[in-house]
């Protein structure tokens, strides 16, 4: 049996072409699934008897919120790998994930406030979930700002790794303290945790949209990591050979 070299694609030189080959597929998948999901969301799913048409924003909002939290953990995992094993590609992946994660966090906050206006009569409440999502956005921005402020890319990678790990340990503490603060300060006039029995077609629409966001994230992150690799390795022989090959 042939021995598989699991670490083959850990090298930027081999990962770069792989990312280039994979990205268009995920791009196409994101567009396709997005179209299906939005069709379900806008035309198939019935109007909610309580919330009317405005509820349809959850087809964007909920998957965006999922992605924002998951991408932070993924970023911290990559940053930790880069820190521990000193693998260059892991840190580059962490760097590539951060802007997409921040974008989804912002999207979740934005769509949430647009949903809140007709539902609660206000764009913003200091609810535990909203507040911790806002803090998550600050954590993403801190990570991006730290890496942007450091000129030496290796130092930037490792400093970002420490910060992402410290942040990841803190995320549950922040979440629970905010939740507790919230219950202490105001009555729970708005209950977000009690999920209404959702029509299964709505759930399907949300899941398809979540898959579409997944594919989008992968496509964007792969393309961005290609840029990071190209920038870092611009003097490497393999990249110049690749450039000469493609003209």
């Amino acid at each position, binding site marked *: 049996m042939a021995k598989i070299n699991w670490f083959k694609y850990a090298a930027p030189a081999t990962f770069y072409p792989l990312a280039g080959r994979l990205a268009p597929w995920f791009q196409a998948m994101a567009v396709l699934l997005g179209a299906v999901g939005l069709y379900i969301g806008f035309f198939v799913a019935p109007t909610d008897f309580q919330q009317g048409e405005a509820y349809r924003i959850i087809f964007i909002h909920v998957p965006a919120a999922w992605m924002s939290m998951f991408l932070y953990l993924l970023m911290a995992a990559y940053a930790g790998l880069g820190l521990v094993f000193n693998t260059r590609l892991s840190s580059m992946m962490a760097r590539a994930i951060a802007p997409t994660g921040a974008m989804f966090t912002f999207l979740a906050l934005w769509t949430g406030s647009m949903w809140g206006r007709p539902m609660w009569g206000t764009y913003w409440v200091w609810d535990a979930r909203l507040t911790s999502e806002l803090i998550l956005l*600050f954590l993403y921005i*801190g990570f991006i700002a*730290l890496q942007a*402020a450091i000129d030496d890319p290796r130092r930037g990678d*490792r400093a970002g790794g420490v910060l992402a*790990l*410290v*942040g990841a340990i803190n995320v549950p503490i*922040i979440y629970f*303290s905010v939740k507790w603060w919230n219950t202490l300060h105001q009555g729970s006039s708005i209950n977000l945790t009690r999920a209404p029995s959702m029509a299964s077609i709505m759930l399907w629409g949300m899941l398809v949209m979540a898959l579409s966001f997944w594919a989008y994230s992968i496509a964007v992150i792969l393309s961005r990591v290609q840029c990071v690799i190209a920038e870092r390795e611009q003097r490497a022989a393999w990249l110049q050979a690749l450039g000469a090959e493609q003209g």
Partner: protein
Amino acid sequence: MSAPLQAAAPGKVLAAQAGAGAGGMFLAMLRRDLLLVYRRRADAITVLVFFSIVVSLFPLGVGADPALLRPIGAGVVWVAALLASLLSLQRLFGADYADGTLEQILLSPQPLALTALAKVLAHWIATGIPLALMSPLLGMQFGLAADALWILTVSVLLGTPILSLVGAVGAALTLGLRGGNLLVALLILPLNIPVLILGAGAVDAAQSGLGAQAHLSLLAALLVATLMGSPFAVAAALRISLD
């Protein structure tokens, strides 16, 4: 002091003075940092003046109505303490980084995490304890009751070491960077939100008759957890920044 000793690394000199070993290094570093603060008293006092000015701005901004000020008093004092502690972080490693002492500390055989802990402890003694001692005075301006003032002092006393410990990670990560001061704020403030919530929450809970025990216990637990993790993160960050 003999000439060869002078030429040796300051870390070694310090350790030699205090009797070698990790504990000796810890005490020597603590004494040195406190001595430096004592010699530059103006720096430490500036932080305290900043603290009282920020707190005094709030009544000017929101109005002097006691009914308005009493419920926000603890939160205002806590936010100001957070900012004052942040402002003083630059001092933690800045001067040692600029004159090369920090590099020598890194070269010393004693564990870096322990040395970093000594510096953080000195920072807390120089900023955290004065902030805690001043906070009841400022709380009084907001009309807090006597028992609430006690809780406020205890919560600041328990919370500021966490601010120093977490802040040290940020200060170490941003050593020598452009706009490092502002960047530290961006990195550290979100991480310190639990301290703010628990610290100000303790006073609020006491004022509303719930008892502050739960908040203070959680704050103490957070302090213990931070105390175990942060020195290693600071050491890692220092090694990265001085690579």
